[in-house]
């Protein structure tokens, strides 16, 4: 990068300053001559701000940039415009590298508004224009592009405040801070930024990957799912075995129920109520019949007691004796042999007692008729006798048999009645038994068997319900298991992803390791190089000084990133208090320039008051060194070699001849406020600001003439 020109607006005293920078390779120096408090620092700041912005370009954000006298509550537009060139080597082919130079215009703006002792500042507005044959094209991503051209890390290296730079070696900073600064300077400014970016990107990537590994599907989840799956499967197996058991038990219960039902049926059938009732009915009917029989027998019995058989039986002899008497009378002829009524009956019948036919006109008939005639003549008494005799006679054959008849009948009755009674008693017993049976069958047996049957039935029902429950549970479990299986497959696949993730992490770590080591390595290489270059430069600068030259042997940056100076007698000197001021400065510049050279970055070196505190030979040597492009620089660096020095007149003193040769552009600053004390002529404006003129290090003009000019042998510019 090479500065071409700059315009600074409202940057402190630099109300409106235009700068032209030397682009002459041989006269690479641009000198801005300014006394103290004349805008040197502001210029540095403005350029830094212009190139690097508020974020990177300022030492502190709270630093006010607008002119001190800017009215309160009035917006102030800060503006820095820088025109610059940037050269990049372009590989045309294997052997040809062409340099390609592009022109750019950078405009950075911000609005600051002072308010009651403080201020607000808007954010930067940056515009980068790329000058092409077609015209000025705005560059998208201006800041990024700028950073490509000149990294932000470089700002304090290329834009150096001589005093500030001492921090590398100064006593004020603690040792660690010093070392860190050196380390950081080397590490981040020597083209290792890219590697650092890569390292950072790798770290970033690794973090991301680790986070993904942790968040996405931690092994824990796979383990959890696997465990759940195992549990569910165990559950399912348990349920299935429960089901089998339950089914077996069901078969058992079914059998039990069947048996219970059989028992109940048998119990019911054994004591079949209806049958028993029927039996009882039959028995009742039999009993009734028997009772009727009994009644009949009794009737026969009572009949017997009033019958002829009894009479003949008991008084048969008397009746026979009576009859015998009557027979005697018959024998005597007192009683006729035939009874008249009987005879009359016989006559009517037409047959005699003896059987002879009493046909009309027969002798037998006539005989009977005669008897009847006689009878009519007999008396009542005889008639009675006759009647009695014939009646009794007819009956008397039965006398003994009648007597026996009674006994026969009574015996028969006795037997029949006894039989009937026995039969009745039997039936009664049967009836009682049946009654008992009937009442028995309503009792315990049926009840208990019914209960047994009902228990078996309900047990069976419960079991069937349980089976259904198990089946439902199994059915709901299956999809769960299926889901878990799917999830597990997914996780496994994911865990393959995890493996891939792991592998990526490994790769990232490996890349990181390589990069880190390379970085460290490079650092050391660069460290070595910077150290060596620093030493060269330092010794070059100091070597010219006899007082220092005899003391210092070398300067180096230790592997701990400490800048040290070695004395001739082999001691290691701490630069901050064992090295004189000039040597300190020289060392600082040596370090910085070594850095810039080794970095290969091509950027203008802008140094504010580089030669302060230096005298004579060191000053000159430093100036010489800085004016020339370093030999170790690459082609771009050489091409772009540009140095802007902000020098006071006293710094310039005793180096004018070198400057004569090396300065390509000169600007002088004059602070209006220095009139009249230092400035001879009154400025056109009394407003505190810097006015510029093109006077060189040897010249003065109306604008910049100072009272001290004579001291420096300045010549008026025409």
């Amino acid at each position: 990068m090479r500065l071409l020109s700059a315009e600074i607006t409202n940057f402190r005293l630099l109300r409106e300053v235009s700068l032209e920078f030397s682009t002459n390779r041989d006269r690479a120096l641009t000198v801005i001559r300014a006394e103290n408090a004349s805008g040197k620092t502001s210029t540095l700041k403005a350029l830094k701000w212009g190139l690097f912005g508020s974020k990177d370009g300022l030492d502190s954000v709270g630093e006010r940039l607008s002119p001190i006298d800017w009215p309160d509550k009035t917006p102030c537009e800060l503006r820095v415009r820088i025109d610059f060139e940037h050269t990049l080597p372009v590989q045309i082919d294997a052997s040809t590298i062409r340099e390609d130079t592009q022109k750019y215009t950078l405009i950075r703006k911000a609005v600051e508004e002072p308010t009651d002792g403080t201020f607000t500042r808007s954010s930067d507005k940056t515009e980068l224009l790329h000058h092409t044959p077609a015209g000025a094209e705005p560059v998208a991503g201006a800041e990024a592009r700028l950073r490509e051209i000149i990294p932000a890390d470089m700002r304090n290296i290329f834009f150096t405040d001589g005093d500030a730079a001492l921090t590398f070696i100064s006593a004020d900073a603690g040792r660690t801070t010093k070392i860190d600064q050196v380390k950081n300077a080397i590490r981040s400014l020597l083209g290792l930024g890219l590697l650092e970016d890569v390292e950072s990107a790798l770290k970033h990537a690794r973090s991301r990957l680790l986070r993904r590994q942790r968040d996405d599907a931690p092994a824990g989840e796979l383990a959890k799912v696997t465990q759940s799956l195992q549990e569910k499967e165990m559950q399912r197996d348990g349920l299935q075995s429960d089901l089998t058991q339950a089914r077996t038990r069901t078969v058992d219960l079914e059998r039990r129920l069947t048996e219970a039902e059989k028992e109940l049926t048998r119990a019911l059938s054994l004591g079949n109520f209806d049958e028993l009732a029927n039996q009882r009915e039959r028995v009742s009917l039999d009993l009734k019949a028997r009772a009727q029989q009994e009644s009949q027998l009794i009737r026969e019995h009572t009949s017997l007691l009033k019958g002829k058989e009894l009479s003949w039986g008991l008084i048969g002899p008397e009746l026979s004796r009576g009859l015998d008497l009557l027979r005697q009378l018959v024998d005597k002829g007192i009683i006729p042999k035939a009874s008249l009524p009987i005879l009359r009956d016989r006559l009517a019948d037409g047959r005699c007692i003896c059987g002879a036919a009493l046909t009309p006109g027969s002798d037998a008939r006539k005989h009977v008729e005669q008897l009847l005639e006689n009878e009519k003549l007999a008396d009542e008494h005889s008639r009675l006798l006759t009647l009695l005799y014939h009646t009794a006679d007819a009956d008397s054959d039965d006398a003994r048999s009648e007597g026996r008849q009674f006994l026969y009948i009574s015996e028969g009755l006795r037997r029949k009645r006894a039989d009937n009674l026995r039969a009745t008693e039997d039936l009664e017993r049967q009836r009682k038994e049946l009654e008992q049976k009937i009442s028995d069958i309503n009792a315990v047996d049926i009840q208990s068997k019914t209960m047994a049957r009902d228990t078996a039935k309900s047990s069976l029902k419960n079991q069937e319900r349980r089976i259904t429950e198990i089946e439902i549970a199994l059915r709901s479990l299956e999809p769960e298991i299926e889901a878990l299986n799917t999830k597990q497959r997914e996780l496994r696949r994911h865990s393959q992803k995890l493996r891939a993730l792991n592998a990526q992490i490994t790769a990232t770590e490996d890349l990181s390791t390589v990069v880190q080591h390379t970085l460290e390595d490079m650092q050391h290489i660069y460290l070595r190089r910077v150290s060596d270059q620093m030493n060269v430069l330092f010794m070059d600068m100091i070597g010219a000084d006899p007082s220092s030259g005899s003391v210092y042997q070398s300067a180096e940056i230790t592997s701990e990133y400490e800048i040290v100076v070695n004395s001739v007698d082999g001691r290691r000197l701490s630069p901050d208090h064992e090295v004189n001021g000039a040597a300190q400065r020289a060392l600082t510049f040596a370090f910085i320039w070594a850095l810039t050279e080794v970095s290969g970055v091509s950027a203008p070196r802008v140094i504010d008051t580089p030669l302060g505190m230096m005298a004579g030979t060191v000053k000159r040597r430093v100036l010489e060194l800085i004016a020339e492009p370093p030999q170790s620089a690459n082609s771009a660096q050489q091409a772009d070699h540009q140095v802007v020095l902000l020098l006071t007149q006293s710094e310039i003193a005793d180096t004018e001849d070198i400057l004569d040769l090396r300065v390509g552009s000169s600007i002088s600053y004059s602070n209006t406020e220095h009139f009249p004390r230092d400035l001879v002529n009154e400025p056109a404006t009394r407003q505190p600001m810097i006015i510029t003129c093109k006077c060189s290090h040897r010249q003065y003009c109306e604008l910049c003439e100072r009272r001290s000019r004579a001291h420096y042998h300045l010549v008026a510019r025409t």
Partner: protein
Amino acid sequence: MSSAELTTRFANLPLRFPEKVMDLVIRYTQTRKPHEDEERSGDLQPFERYVDLWWTALCLGVREGRRTPELECGPWHKFIDTNQILPSDPWRAEHLMLLAIAETKSTEVLSHPSQIVEIANEYAATGIRLIADAMARENRPIWGATRLVEDSISSLASPRSA
């Protein structure tokens, strides 16, 4: 039958029991029913009518060989007239006559029906106690009466049987 004519010889002659035994007569006769249960009345009241009991009593009296005159048994109770009862069992008229003939050893008695009946009454007065006792001895009087009759008949067949 022609024996029915015999009954006409007995006109309005009283059949009677001694007054003293009438409660027994009532007890063992079905004329009045002391129990509701008709079936059993036969066993308990073996005789349908007074005359049935009277006849059995007279038969047993005859076997006993003893007549009990009024003097002995006290006042009589007439329970029925002959003409009311004899026509239903005409053989009883026949037997009464034969009994009277055997008793008096003559047929003359036939001219005196009152005497025939008296003989019967006196024999009945003897027999009623016998049968009443026999009936009382049994739970079922019918068997008491029956056994007594049987024993009496059996003792006729073989002399001197208890």
